[in-house]
């Protein structure tokens, strides 16, 4: 099966991927905006008031998509890091590095919105709920990845070392989640589930789905732009970059 390899391989070099990312990013950004507006419209105008929580539950339209994205981006980041480590393809490692900040941001948003939702519903800013706790630990894993990468000067070693901790982290995420879940039920009895508390009207589910797609498109757009920055920084003295500099 050589045919697809050639095509795929063509885009795996930073030089050929740079313009491609440049053209794709705006489209993803526009699509993200469209989905976001539609999602927010559903969230605020189509979704009914919840009989139990009133209007506070609308935070779900940001909280749940952000939590899903934080987990999804970590696994994608670990995937790209593993590819970069195994086949020594620089672009894959750059992709992993480009994903990390957005993933960490999504985790922060999930934690922040989780706290702001917990206050009216459970009366406390921070609740040691299994998912919120795992989200906090996920934030530490992201920070570990980013700080380890920043602490090493040589880019190649930085990529490979960060890849190892990303892979080890990815393997530990389920272990951490289940041990926190076990620990949580042990101490607090059945924790109030963030979603099961109110009957899941279909519009709510639909709203969350649209918002998740919006977040996903947004992440792709941001990562594409950031990977272009990383490529420029890494390939600074490559000649194709110098010509580029002269032109823009």
């Amino acid at each position, binding site marked *: 099966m050589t045919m697809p390899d050639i095509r795929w391989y063509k885009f795996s070099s930073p030089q050929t991927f740079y313009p491609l990312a440049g053209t794709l990013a705006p489209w993803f950004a526009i699509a993200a905006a469209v989905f976001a507006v539609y999602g927010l419209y559903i969230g605020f105008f189509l979704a009914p008031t919840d009989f139990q929580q009133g209007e506070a539950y609308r935070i779900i339209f940001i909280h749940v998509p952000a939590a899903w994205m934080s987990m999804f981006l970590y696994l994608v980041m670990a995937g790209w890091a593993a590819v970069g480590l195994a086949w020594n393809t620089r672009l894959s490692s750059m992709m992993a590095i480009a994903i990390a900040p957005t993933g960490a941001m999504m985790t922060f948003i999930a934690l922040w919105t989780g706290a702001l939702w917990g206050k009216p519903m459970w009366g406390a800013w921070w609740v040691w709920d299994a998912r919120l706790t795992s989200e906090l*630990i996920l934030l*530490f*894993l992201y*920070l*570990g990845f980013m*700080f*380890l990468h920043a*602490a*090493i000067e*040589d880019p*190649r*070693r930085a990529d*490979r*070392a960060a890849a*190892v*901790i990303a*892979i*080890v*982290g990815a*393997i*530990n995420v389920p*272990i*951490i989640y289940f*041990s*926190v879940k*076990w*620990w949580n039920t*042990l101490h607090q009895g059945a924790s109030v589930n963030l979603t099961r508390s109110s009957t899941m009207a279909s519009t709510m589910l639909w709203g969350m789905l649209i918002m998740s797609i919006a977040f996903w498109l947004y992440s792709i757009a941001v990562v594409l732009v950031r990977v272009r920055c990383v490529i420029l920084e890494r390939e600074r003295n490559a000649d194709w970059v110098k010509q580029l500099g002269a032109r823009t």
Partner: protein
Amino acid sequence: MSGVLDAMASVIARDLRIAMRRRADVMTSLIFFVIVVSLFPLGIGADPVLLRTLGPGVVWVAALLACMLALARLFANDHADGTLEQMVLAPQPLSMLVLAKTAAHWLTTGLPLVIIAPLLGLQFNLDAEALLILLASLLLGTPTLSLIGGIGAALTLGLRGGGALLALLVLPLYIPVLIFGAGAVEATAAALGAGAHLSILGALLLGTLVFAPWATALALRIAIE
């Protein structure tokens, strides 16, 4: 096969002999453990009931921190004097040699913690059965801590500010061991039996035993470049 075992034996023999000659290093992490554990009653107050509930968690967190502190030295000295290069170039699988180094590290830091922990448990007036489970959970848990810590030590080899970075990398991965370690002792106090917790600690140990040396060897090859 005998070549690998002999090489591993030489690594363990060397590290233990060095540890004997530099007893200070062994003592420092042990004394750190004792001090940290003794600080808590001073901070929380001497109410026996309160101390009893906090005891397992405090002893476990202190053991975890003491273990992590000792990790920075795991590869740093070998890296500085060139023995790490020779180990990487030895015709044996590096992950097995790393396993030997981690074992030697556990014998000099993890094991002393396990032996002294029940003594400290008395400060938190844990009863005999709780102290026994504390010993068992630490015996099963501390090797896992050394193994996971080895990955962090190898990744942060030779980096400025390696200590804090090592903590950031390794502590999140320690959480499952902490949960089931401390949980085991609490379970006995609540007469629920610690069987489940100890078996999970054993499972974590086996999983780490298989995976961590390979990851540490990979991290070492990256760090040594």
